């Protein structure tokens, strides 16, 4: 009897060890794809990711690192990680403006061999922008984002189309006592101010930075934009406190019903339709005003996936990206979270058109998108512009001097970077 027990014990132990080996063996075959995403995206994609992990059990497992909420903080986290050499991430969900910088730092893997012409054609026109650097594809878009002009349907029959109309209309509304402010936007010294400027300079017929690296900040149009923004504050159409307004402050002013117009991103629509909003069902969206000679422009936001050069499993990473940017996933994101799709077909999708009244406007805005200057030195250029614009808006400096300053500093940066060689 005791001998029998001994055999039993030995066999149990050997089965246990063998079994563990088997599980380990399977572990080695399992590939984990690490993705860094800003917190809101990590939350909204969690369902799709769960679905993916379930269907690829034992083969690929997506692990999401939930980054900070704030856009630039995600970049800080990514850069700190990349600087250490062997990044822990395979994929990063990236804002449109980071791409040239990351690409020229040599951190990104070109994706041209995985995404063919057909794939590109499926993208909505606006979503095709901001994914390339020096003729190579580095990024595949998940969510399109663009600057929009929100207007109050209860106060006007149609939104203003030109700078002149905007001033005339809002001044009338203010003098009639219908609103406290005419137009709220992002005037704080930060990236949002550059976005506001880009839309206007294009709309006024100027250029911040041309394709041939010509800087247009000391041109008539650029100065007109700066003067016009300053004028809005001086006329009381925009509150003077706009110089510390980012998106939440502008949204708060518009949501309370005290402003007639607002510049913001698509996310604001859902916020304005909430129960606590004073303007629920009273809002329309359109693109930014423009003048003769310019064209109405939306600043391209948009988030997309990049694969890091250090990733050991690029093929599997691409598989993950293709899954997460598929029509199904994007439809989900739009319905549940209002994230603007990048696939052209979704803009004609009957179901989506029924659930969202603003989809046609979004499609139109997406066609009007333009990216911010696509250079590795964009952060410096934007910083220079923000500083000078902020000094104009707060009355610290006059338009002429400040814009000339911005111009010469921008040229200096580009020159030292060898842009004109």
């Amino acid at each position, binding site marked *: 009897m005791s001998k029998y027990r001994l055999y039993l014990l030995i066999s149990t132990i050997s089965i246990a060890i063998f079994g563990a080996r088997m599980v380990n063996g399977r572990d080695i075959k399992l590939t984990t794809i690490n993705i860094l995403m800003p917190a809101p995206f990590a939350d909204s994609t969690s369902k799709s990711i769960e679905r993916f992990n379930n269907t690829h059990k034992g083969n690929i497992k997506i692990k999401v690192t939930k980054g900070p909420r704030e856009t*630039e903080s995600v*970049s*800080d986290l990514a*850069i*700190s990680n990349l*600087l250490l050499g062997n990044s822990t991430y395979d994929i990063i969900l990236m804002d449109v403006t980071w791409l040239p*910088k990351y690409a*020229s*730092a*040599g951190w990104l893997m070109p994706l041209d061999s995985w995404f063919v012409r057909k794939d590109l054609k499926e993208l909505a026109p606006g979503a095709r922008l901001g994914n390339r650097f020096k003729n190579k594809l580095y990024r595949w878009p998940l969510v399109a984002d663009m600057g929009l002009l929100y207007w109050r349907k209860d106060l006007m029959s149609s939104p203003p189309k030109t700078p002149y109309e905007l001033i005339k209309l809002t001044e009338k509304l203010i003098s009639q006592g219908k609103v*406290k402010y005419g137009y709220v936007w992002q*005037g*704080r*010294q*930060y990236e949002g101010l550059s976005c506001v400027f880009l839309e206007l300079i294009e709309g006024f017929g100027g250029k911040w930075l041309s394709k041939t690296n010509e800087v247009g900040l000391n041109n008539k149009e650029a100065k007109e934009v700066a003067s016009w923004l300053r004028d809005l504050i001086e006329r009381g159409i925009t*509150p*003077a*406190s*706009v*110089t*510390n*307004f*980012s998106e939440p*402050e502008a949204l*708060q*002013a518009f949501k*309370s019903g005290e402003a007639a117009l607002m510049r913001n991103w698509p996310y604001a629509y859902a916020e304005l339709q909430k129960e606590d909003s004073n303007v629920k069902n009273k809002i329309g969206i359109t693109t930014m005003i423009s003048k003769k000679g310019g064209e109405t422009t939306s600043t391209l936001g948009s988030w997309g996936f990049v694969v890091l050069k250090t990733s050991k499993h690029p093929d599997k990473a691409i598989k993950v990206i293709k899954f997460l940017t598929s029509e199904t996933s994007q439809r989900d994101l739009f319905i549940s979270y209002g994230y603007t799709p990048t696939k052209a077909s979704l803009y004609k999708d009957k179901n989506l058109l029924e659930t969202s009244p603003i989809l046609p406007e979004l499609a139109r805005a997406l066609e009007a998108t333009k990216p911010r200057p696509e250079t*590795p*030195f964009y*952060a*410096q250029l934007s*910083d220079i512009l*923000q*500083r000078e614009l*902020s*000094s104009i*808006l*707060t009355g*610290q*400096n006059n338009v002429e001097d400040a814009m000339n300053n911005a111009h010469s500093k921008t040229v200096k940066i580009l020159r*030292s*970077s*060898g842009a004109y060689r």
Partner: protein
Amino acid sequence: MNYLLLIPATLLLLLVFGFPLIRYFWLSLHASSVLTGLEPIYNNGANWIRLISDGRFWQDLYQTSRFAVFSVGIEMILALVIALLLNNEWKSKQIYRSITLLPWALPTTIMALSWRWIFNTPYGPIDQILNLIGFNNLNILSNPSLAWVGTVIADVWKTTPFIALILLAGLQTIPVDLYEAFRLEGGSPKQSFLYITLPLLKPYLLLGLIFRLAQAFGVFDLIQVMTGGGPASSTESLAIYSYLNAMRFLDFGYSSTIMLASFMILIFVCLSAYIVTITITNNFRRYKL
């Protein structure tokens, strides 16, 4: 032989302090940015020459010093008052002490965000109060000549409790007997503050001062969240400028130069503060016989 016991601590300090400093110094002598493909290339001190002629560095140095001097100065005085109040025998003083510490326990970013909304024009309470008493449209955080005051107020609100705690600990080491003996000798409350409290609190005052100066000099998150350095760069600190260079511009050579320069200035400031405080408090014992 006794010095052998210091070796672990010294090694740790070298590792934690020395290594980054040497690394900063080394980087500050190199160009290391997107232009060099992030490779460090020796550049003959060009970063330092650039720093000296960089108006923005000097402006930020001025703004950082202004922030540090005003916030730490106000904090020290307020904290002393609070510590003196809390040192009294009060009913349920424990509760007051805990309440006083609350601001300090809050994460800086959260409290900075709250202050941004408190100062918000036109929806923040401060603006509404200012409107009531006749100051219309001050736009504190949107006004380049006032925004720094807003950041100082927020910093004072947040950090005063911390100094108050240090000073309270110091006050509790002073025996009550000393005050009573001095009272019997004819010392007024003001005199006992000057001749007993201040000199005996000196080590704690110095601790708070140096600690806070160093912290305030490196202010980053509070300003980043409240104003982002604006409006018109009027609140930008050295730490923000250095951060911009490193994380946004990927210019690590210049960023290290700014960091190292502000570190050296900070050492100088702390030493001066130390000497000034020692001199001031020593003046209370001028009557050598």
